[in-house]
Protein backbone atom coordinates (compact mmCIF):
# COMPACT_ATOMS: atom_id res chain seq x y z
CA UNK A 1 0.00 0.00 0.00
CA UNK A 2 1.22 3.48 -0.81
CA UNK A 3 0.00 6.42 1.24
CA UNK A 4 0.59 9.95 -0.05
CA UNK A 5 -0.59 13.42 0.89
CA UNK A 6 -3.58 14.72 -1.04
CA UNK A 7 -3.12 17.49 -3.59
CA UNK A 8 -3.56 20.87 -1.96
CA UNK A 9 -2.09 19.70 1.37
CA UNK A 10 1.25 21.40 1.99
CA UNK A 11 4.05 18.83 2.34
CA UNK A 12 6.94 20.56 4.16
CA UNK A 13 9.12 17.43 4.01
CA UNK A 14 8.59 17.10 0.24
CA UNK A 15 9.52 20.79 -0.12
CA UNK A 16 12.75 20.28 1.84
CA UNK A 17 13.65 17.24 -0.31
CA UNK A 18 12.87 19.26 -3.45
CA UNK A 19 15.32 21.96 -2.30
CA UNK A 20 17.99 19.39 -1.42
CA UNK A 21 17.73 17.73 -4.85
CA UNK A 22 18.13 21.13 -6.47
CA UNK A 23 21.20 21.91 -4.35
CA UNK A 24 22.74 18.58 -5.45
CA UNK A 25 22.54 19.86 -9.01
CA UNK A 26 19.57 17.77 -10.24
CA UNK A 27 17.81 20.08 -12.65
CA UNK A 28 14.26 19.72 -13.88
CA UNK A 29 12.90 18.35 -10.59
CA UNK A 30 9.26 19.38 -10.25
CA UNK A 31 7.12 18.82 -7.15
CA UNK A 32 8.35 16.24 -4.65
CA UNK A 33 5.75 14.55 -2.44
CA UNK A 34 6.85 12.29 0.40
CA UNK A 35 4.73 9.26 1.30
CA UNK A 36 4.79 5.87 3.02
CA UNK A 37 4.88 2.30 1.74
CA UNK A 38 3.44 -0.64 3.72
CA UNK A 39 4.33 -4.20 2.69
CA UNK A 40 1.71 -6.47 4.23
CA UNK A 41 1.50 -10.24 3.87
CA UNK A 42 -2.01 -11.65 4.08
CA UNK A 43 -2.99 -15.32 4.35
CA UNK A 44 -5.22 -17.10 1.83
CA UNK A 45 -5.61 -17.14 -1.94
CA UNK A 46 -8.76 -15.02 -2.23
CA UNK A 47 -7.56 -11.82 -3.93
CA UNK A 48 -10.90 -10.05 -3.67
CA UNK A 49 -11.07 -10.64 0.08
CA UNK A 50 -7.44 -9.56 0.52
CA UNK A 51 -8.12 -6.36 -1.38
CA UNK A 52 -11.22 -5.62 0.67
CA UNK A 53 -9.30 -6.25 3.91
CA UNK A 54 -6.41 -4.05 2.82
CA UNK A 55 -8.82 -1.26 1.89
CA UNK A 56 -10.40 -1.48 5.34
CA UNK A 57 -6.92 -1.35 6.95
CA UNK A 58 -6.12 1.84 5.02
CA UNK A 59 -9.43 3.45 5.95
CA UNK A 60 -9.24 2.48 9.62
CA UNK A 61 -5.55 2.97 10.42
CA UNK A 62 -2.87 3.23 7.75
CA UNK A 63 -4.06 6.43 6.07
CA UNK A 64 -5.52 9.57 7.61
CA UNK A 65 -8.08 10.25 4.90
CA UNK A 66 -8.43 13.88 5.99
CA UNK A 67 -5.02 14.57 4.43
CA UNK A 68 -3.87 11.36 2.71
CA UNK A 69 -4.76 9.20 -0.30
CA UNK A 70 -3.86 5.53 -0.55
CA UNK A 71 -3.31 3.05 -3.37
CA UNK A 72 -3.26 -0.75 -3.08
CA UNK A 73 -1.32 -3.09 -5.33
CA UNK A 74 -1.51 -6.90 -4.94
CA UNK A 75 1.04 -9.44 -6.11
Amino acid at each position, binding site marked *: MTVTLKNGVLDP*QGKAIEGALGSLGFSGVGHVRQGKVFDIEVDGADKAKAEADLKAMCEKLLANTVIENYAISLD
Partner: protein
Amino acid sequence: MKSAVVQLPGLNRDRDMIAALTKISGRAPITVWQTETEIPDVDLIVIPGGFSYGDYLRCGAIAARMPVMQAIKEKADQGVKVLGVCNGFQILVEAGMLPGALMRNSSLKFVCKEVKLEVVNAETDFTRAYEKGQVIRCPVAHHDGNYFVDSELLSSLEDNGQIVFRYAEGTNPNGSLSDIAGVMNRSGNVLGMMPHPENLIEAAHGGSDGRGIFASALDVVAATA
Protein backbone atom coordinates in the same frame (compact mmCIF):
# COMPACT_ATOMS: atom_id res chain seq x y z
CA MET B 1 -16.01 18.76 39.89
CA LYS B 2 -14.34 15.43 39.31
CA SER B 3 -11.74 14.88 36.64
CA ALA B 4 -9.83 12.00 35.05
CA VAL B 5 -6.46 11.88 33.30
CA VAL B 6 -5.85 9.25 30.63
CA GLN B 7 -2.53 7.41 30.67
CA LEU B 8 -1.03 5.66 27.64
CA PRO B 9 2.48 4.36 27.01
CA GLY B 10 4.68 7.22 25.84
CA LEU B 11 2.62 10.08 27.29
CA ASN B 12 4.91 12.10 29.56
CA ARG B 13 2.92 15.20 30.48
CA ASP B 14 0.44 13.29 32.63
CA ARG B 15 2.20 14.21 35.88
CA ASP B 16 2.11 17.94 35.09
CA MET B 17 -1.56 17.60 34.19
CA ILE B 18 -2.39 15.72 37.40
CA ALA B 19 -0.57 18.40 39.42
CA ALA B 20 -2.43 21.22 37.64
CA LEU B 21 -5.86 19.62 38.09
CA THR B 22 -5.14 18.84 41.74
CA LYS B 23 -3.98 22.37 42.51
CA ILE B 24 -6.84 24.07 40.70
CA SER B 25 -9.76 21.83 41.68
CA GLY B 26 -8.51 20.89 45.14
CA ARG B 27 -8.87 17.17 44.43
CA ALA B 28 -6.65 14.73 42.57
CA PRO B 29 -7.95 13.42 39.24
CA ILE B 30 -8.66 9.73 38.73
CA THR B 31 -6.14 8.10 36.39
CA VAL B 32 -7.41 5.88 33.59
CA TRP B 33 -5.18 3.34 31.82
CA GLN B 34 -5.48 2.74 28.07
CA THR B 35 -6.99 -0.74 28.34
CA GLU B 36 -9.93 0.39 30.46
CA THR B 37 -13.31 0.17 28.79
CA GLU B 38 -15.26 2.15 31.34
CA ILE B 39 -14.54 5.67 32.52
CA PRO B 40 -15.54 6.59 36.08
CA ASP B 41 -18.23 9.20 36.58
CA VAL B 42 -16.37 12.49 36.08
CA ASP B 43 -17.09 15.96 34.70
CA LEU B 44 -13.84 16.38 32.76
CA ILE B 45 -11.58 13.88 31.00
CA VAL B 46 -8.09 15.11 30.06
CA ILE B 47 -5.76 13.48 27.53
CA PRO B 48 -2.32 14.92 28.28
CA GLY B 49 0.69 15.45 26.03
CA GLY B 50 3.67 13.31 25.19
CA PHE B 51 4.60 10.82 22.52
CA SER B 52 2.09 7.98 22.73
CA TYR B 53 3.37 4.86 20.97
CA GLY B 54 6.51 6.76 20.01
CA ASP B 55 4.54 8.80 17.46
CA TYR B 56 4.73 5.71 15.21
CA LEU B 57 2.66 5.79 11.99
CA ARG B 58 1.24 9.27 12.71
CA CYS B 59 1.17 11.20 15.99
CA GLY B 60 -1.73 9.88 18.06
CA ALA B 61 -2.84 7.34 15.41
CA ILE B 62 -2.31 4.20 17.47
CA ALA B 63 -3.47 5.68 20.78
CA ALA B 64 -6.68 6.82 19.06
CA ARG B 65 -7.53 3.18 18.37
CA MET B 66 -7.02 1.87 21.93
CA PRO B 67 -10.05 0.58 23.89
CA VAL B 68 -10.10 3.56 26.26
CA MET B 69 -10.84 5.92 23.36
CA GLN B 70 -14.13 4.17 22.60
CA ALA B 71 -15.11 4.68 26.23
CA ILE B 72 -14.11 8.36 26.04
CA LYS B 73 -16.16 8.81 22.86
CA GLU B 74 -19.21 7.41 24.62
CA LYS B 75 -18.71 9.81 27.55
CA ALA B 76 -18.24 12.74 25.16
CA ASP B 77 -21.47 11.80 23.36
CA GLN B 78 -23.18 12.04 26.76
CA GLY B 79 -21.83 15.58 27.17
CA VAL B 80 -18.83 14.97 29.45
CA LYS B 81 -16.11 17.56 28.81
CA VAL B 82 -12.94 16.27 27.13
CA LEU B 83 -9.70 18.27 26.87
CA GLY B 84 -6.76 17.09 24.75
CA VAL B 85 -3.46 18.93 25.04
CA CYS B 86 -0.65 18.51 22.49
CA ASN B 87 -0.46 14.74 21.85
CA GLY B 88 -3.93 14.62 23.42
CA PHE B 89 -5.15 16.97 20.65
CA GLN B 90 -3.46 14.78 18.03
CA ILE B 91 -5.20 11.72 19.52
CA LEU B 92 -8.61 13.46 19.44
CA VAL B 93 -8.29 14.35 15.73
CA GLU B 94 -7.06 10.84 14.91
CA ALA B 95 -10.04 9.42 16.80
CA GLY B 96 -12.37 11.57 14.72
CA MET B 97 -13.62 13.41 17.82
CA LEU B 98 -12.33 16.73 16.46
CA PRO B 99 -12.15 17.87 12.82
CA GLY B 100 -8.96 18.32 10.80
CA ALA B 101 -5.45 16.90 11.05
CA LEU B 102 -2.15 17.88 12.70
CA MET B 103 0.82 17.72 10.35
CA ARG B 104 4.59 18.15 10.66
CA ASN B 105 5.59 21.74 11.61
CA SER B 106 6.28 23.77 8.48
CA SER B 107 9.80 24.49 9.82
CA LEU B 108 10.32 20.69 10.14
CA LYS B 109 11.74 21.48 13.60
CA PHE B 110 10.55 20.57 17.07
CA VAL B 111 9.51 23.84 18.72
CA CYS B 112 9.74 24.39 22.47
CA LYS B 113 9.02 27.98 23.45
CA GLU B 114 6.42 30.42 24.67
CA VAL B 115 3.78 31.78 22.29
CA LYS B 116 0.87 34.21 22.53
CA LEU B 117 -2.68 32.93 22.20
CA GLU B 118 -5.76 34.92 21.32
CA VAL B 119 -8.94 33.69 22.98
CA VAL B 120 -11.15 33.67 19.87
CA ASN B 121 -14.22 32.24 21.59
CA ALA B 122 -14.67 33.06 25.29
CA GLU B 123 -18.16 31.59 25.48
CA THR B 124 -17.11 27.97 25.88
CA ASP B 125 -16.96 25.59 28.83
CA PHE B 126 -13.17 25.89 28.66
CA THR B 127 -12.67 29.63 28.24
CA ARG B 128 -15.28 31.50 30.22
CA ALA B 129 -12.58 32.72 32.61
CA TYR B 130 -11.21 34.86 29.76
CA GLU B 131 -12.47 37.78 27.68
CA LYS B 132 -13.02 37.44 23.93
CA GLY B 133 -9.92 38.72 22.15
CA GLN B 134 -7.77 38.48 25.28
CA VAL B 135 -4.17 37.54 24.50
CA ILE B 136 -2.51 35.12 26.92
CA ARG B 137 0.95 33.58 27.16
CA CYS B 138 1.34 29.82 26.80
CA PRO B 139 4.21 27.37 26.28
CA VAL B 140 4.31 25.00 23.28
CA ALA B 141 6.48 21.91 22.74
CA HIS B 142 5.75 19.84 19.64
CA HIS B 143 6.91 18.59 16.25
CA ASP B 144 3.50 18.09 14.62
CA GLY B 145 1.20 20.98 15.42
CA ASN B 146 0.51 22.26 11.93
CA TYR B 147 -3.30 22.22 11.86
CA PHE B 148 -4.98 21.53 8.54
CA VAL B 149 -8.58 21.40 7.32
CA ASP B 150 -9.97 21.92 3.84
CA SER B 151 -11.40 25.35 3.03
CA GLU B 152 -15.02 24.25 3.30
CA LEU B 153 -14.52 22.85 6.80
CA LEU B 154 -12.49 25.91 7.80
CA SER B 155 -15.43 28.20 7.02
CA SER B 156 -17.78 25.97 8.97
CA LEU B 157 -15.41 25.99 11.98
CA GLU B 158 -15.34 29.79 11.81
CA ASP B 159 -19.12 30.09 11.40
CA ASN B 160 -19.79 27.79 14.36
CA GLY B 161 -17.28 29.41 16.72
CA GLN B 162 -15.26 26.20 16.90
CA ILE B 163 -11.91 27.97 16.64
CA VAL B 164 -11.18 28.62 20.32
CA PHE B 165 -7.53 29.75 20.25
CA ARG B 166 -5.32 31.32 17.59
CA TYR B 167 -1.60 32.04 17.78
CA ALA B 168 -1.36 35.82 18.18
CA GLU B 169 1.11 38.59 17.43
CA GLY B 170 3.03 36.62 14.78
CA THR B 171 3.91 33.76 17.15
CA ASN B 172 2.50 30.89 15.02
CA PRO B 173 5.21 28.28 15.71
CA ASN B 174 4.20 25.58 13.24
CA GLY B 175 2.59 26.99 10.08
CA SER B 176 -0.89 26.07 11.33
CA LEU B 177 -3.67 27.06 8.93
CA SER B 178 -5.29 30.36 9.87
CA ASP B 179 -3.05 30.44 13.01
CA ILE B 180 -5.29 27.83 14.64
CA ALA B 181 -4.00 26.67 18.04
CA GLY B 182 -7.15 25.07 19.49
CA VAL B 183 -10.50 23.84 18.16
CA MET B 184 -13.60 22.31 19.70
CA ASN B 185 -16.30 20.00 18.41
CA ARG B 186 -19.66 21.23 17.22
CA SER B 187 -21.38 20.62 20.55
CA GLY B 188 -18.64 22.46 22.44
CA ASN B 189 -17.68 19.80 25.00
CA VAL B 190 -14.49 18.51 23.35
CA LEU B 191 -11.49 20.87 23.04
CA GLY B 192 -8.07 20.14 21.57
CA MET B 193 -5.12 22.52 21.75
CA MET B 194 -1.40 22.24 20.96
CA PRO B 195 -0.14 24.65 23.70
CA HIS B 196 0.36 23.45 27.28
CA PRO B 197 -1.75 25.53 29.70
CA GLU B 198 -0.90 23.10 32.52
CA ASN B 199 2.62 24.51 32.47
CA LEU B 200 1.59 28.08 33.25
CA ILE B 201 -0.68 27.90 36.27
CA GLU B 202 1.26 29.37 39.19
CA ALA B 203 3.99 31.83 40.16
CA ALA B 204 6.63 29.09 40.09
CA HIS B 205 5.89 28.73 36.35
CA GLY B 206 6.39 32.45 35.81
CA GLY B 207 2.70 33.17 35.38
CA SER B 208 -0.77 31.73 35.58
CA ASP B 209 -2.26 32.55 32.18
CA GLY B 210 -3.18 28.89 31.56
CA ARG B 211 -5.11 28.51 34.78
CA GLY B 212 -8.35 29.88 33.36
CA ILE B 213 -8.82 26.91 31.03
CA PHE B 214 -8.91 24.47 33.94
CA ALA B 215 -10.83 26.87 36.18
CA SER B 216 -13.47 27.19 33.44
CA ALA B 217 -13.67 23.46 32.71
CA LEU B 218 -13.76 22.56 36.42
CA ASP B 219 -16.29 25.28 37.14
CA VAL B 220 -14.16 26.99 39.77
CA VAL B 221 -13.67 30.33 37.99
CA ALA B 222 -14.93 32.42 40.89
CA ALA B 223 -12.92 30.41 43.43
CA THR B 224 -9.61 30.97 41.67
CA ALA B 225 -10.16 34.51 40.37
